[in-house]
């Protein structure tokens, strides 16, 4: 069995993957963001790279002199972020940008309350599964080709049969995070039948 530390699909390896734009680059994206006054939504289904993009965006905004404040909600943590708001509310200004991952967790009324209480912030950028809460900045989508490319980046000596790649992509409905988590299990070598289709060549 492969040790967790040797698994090429370990979380810290996956977190090193960079967001890949389909048809633009960082300067273009930042220009659009500026033209939208740093307000907008990164829209896409689960596992499509929204959080990765938001994380990288934080690193791009700080050197511009903006103060970045991050807020994260998910299905397990969806209460109104009262303490976050309280800690910022009176100090927000044009240089403050809030990056809100998972804004769809707030019900409509809470969402409007949040917007009102943070209205002095210079920017508000959110991730969400569905468009509508703020003007869409970018739609994150996944493809089989992207999945294959990411797998190769995680381990250059992994040969994954196209059938297995397709099967995982279909099974997880394009959710690359979940598909890669399943690859983690396959790479442990316990599920030998599946592992037949996943060839891990040792590095010499």
């Amino acid at each position: 069995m492969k040790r967790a530390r040797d698994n090429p699909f370990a979380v810290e390896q996956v977190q090193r993957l960079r967001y890949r734009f389909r048809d633009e680059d960082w300067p273009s994206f930042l220009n659009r963001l500026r033209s939208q006054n740093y307000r907008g939504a990164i829209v896409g289904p689960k596992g499509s790279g929204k959080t990765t993009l938001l994380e990288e965006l934080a690193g791009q905004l700080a050197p511009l002199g903006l103060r970045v404040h991050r807020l994260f909600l998910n299905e397990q943590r969806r209460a109104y972020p009262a303490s976050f708001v309280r800690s910022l509310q009176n100090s927000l200004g044009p240089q403050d940008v809030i990056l809100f991952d998972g804004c769809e967790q707030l019900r409509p009324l809470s969402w409007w309350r949040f917007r009102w209480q943070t209205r002095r912030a210079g920017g508000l950028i959110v991730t969400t599964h569905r468009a509508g809460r703020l003007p869409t900045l970018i739609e994150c989508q996944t493809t089989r080709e992207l999945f294959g490319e990411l797998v190769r980046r995680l381990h250059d000596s992994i040969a994954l049969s196209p059938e297995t790649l397709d099967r995982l992509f279909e099974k997880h409905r394009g959710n690359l995070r979940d598909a890669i988590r399943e690859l983690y299990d396959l790479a442990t070598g316990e599920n030998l039948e599946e592992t037949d289709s996943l060839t891990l060549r040792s590095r010499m």
Partner: protein
Amino acid sequence: MSQLAIYLPDDRSDFEPMETISVEAQWELDSEPDSLQLRVVWNTSGKGDTNISTNKILTIDSPGAADSRRLDVELPAAPYSFSGKYVSLIWALELIAQPLNESCRREITIGPGRREVLLHRESTDPPAEE
């Protein structure tokens, strides 16, 4: 180009818990840092979120741009280095130049008999046919 290096006794990387080791830190930096820190840290690696912890920090003040220093470090008693299917705990020494953000890292094993504790049985046999 800045360079930092950590040299371990006899080039070993596996140690007993609470063993005191003599670590040589070497640095050659483009500019003089305020201080150098040798940290004893651990992190987890695997399928779940990553946890990190700093066990010990030894500071070298006004170290100059290039030099070397030998430091005695008592390694912790626990937790042991271990690996299972879903999580590994990895110890490491890190040498960090402040505030330059230059650093280097050397992973080590801390455990009884200088071995990583394995949470699963190592098997070299091929799987039995059904």
